[in-house]
């Protein structure tokens, strides 16, 4: 065996291992600050989808571009609070608008009283039908009365008998 072959790998291995370990430790030390910074940063959260829309002075200023085409629609509130509109693109290419108006508390009571006291009105057709039915009922009652009391003479108004 040649002398140089007596060199065992172990002589080199510790250096290599040490070197590697030192290097690895150095790497860790270098990486750690970044890790710490990342830990300090809050974990990324998924953004919560917000409502589309805006507060407007007049609903006439709203354009088609203000309404998103994702199907969720947009809410538009009038600045004075008198009306809210929800606009949405429909499948046929038009914008559908839903209007909401507030019912104030003092008006709510008035509305219910008005509804309670409102006279019942029927259409002319319904009235004509009811009158026809009533006259039919009257005729049948008269027939029944005559059938029950056939001998009873009917006194005509204005007669002396």
């Amino acid at each position, binding site marked *: 065996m040649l002398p140089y072959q007596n060199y065992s790998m172990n002589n080199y291995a510790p250096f290599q291992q040490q070197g590697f370990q030192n290097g690895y430790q150095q790497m860790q030390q270098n990486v750690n600050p970044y890790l710490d910074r990342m830990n300090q940063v809050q974990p990324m959260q998924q953004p919560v989808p917000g409502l589309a829309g805006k507060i407007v002075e007049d609903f006439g200023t709203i*354009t088609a571009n203000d309404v998103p085409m*994702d*199907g969720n629609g947009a809410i538009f509130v009038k600045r004075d609070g008198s009306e809210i509109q929800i606009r949405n*693109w*429909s*499948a*046929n*290419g038009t*914008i559908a608008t839903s209007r909401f108006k507030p019912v104030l508390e003092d008006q709510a009571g008035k509305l219910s009283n008005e509804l309670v006291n409102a006279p019942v009105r029927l259409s002319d057709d319904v009235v004509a039908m009811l009158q026809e039915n009533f006259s039919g009922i009257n005729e049948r009652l008269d027939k029944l009365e005559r059938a029950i009391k056939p001998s009873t003479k009917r006194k005509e108004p204005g007669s002396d008998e």
Partner: protein
Amino acid sequence: MNNPLQIMQMVKNPQAFIQNMMNNNQIMQNPIINNAMQMYQKGDMEGLNKLAENMCKENNTTMEQMKNQIMKQLGM
């Protein structure tokens, strides 16, 4: 669809473009596109025309003006 490259792709190979769109779930969630695709598949050109007219009306424009704008973008 403001990207001129996408418009060129659509003009060159409309079938592939439409197929790509149909495979995209996010796009197909859009009710207008969904309806348009269904009408296209059924061959309902009248319905597609009406859809385009309605959209133009909502944007205060006409089909003719829209067509001219697109042609301008394509440099024709």
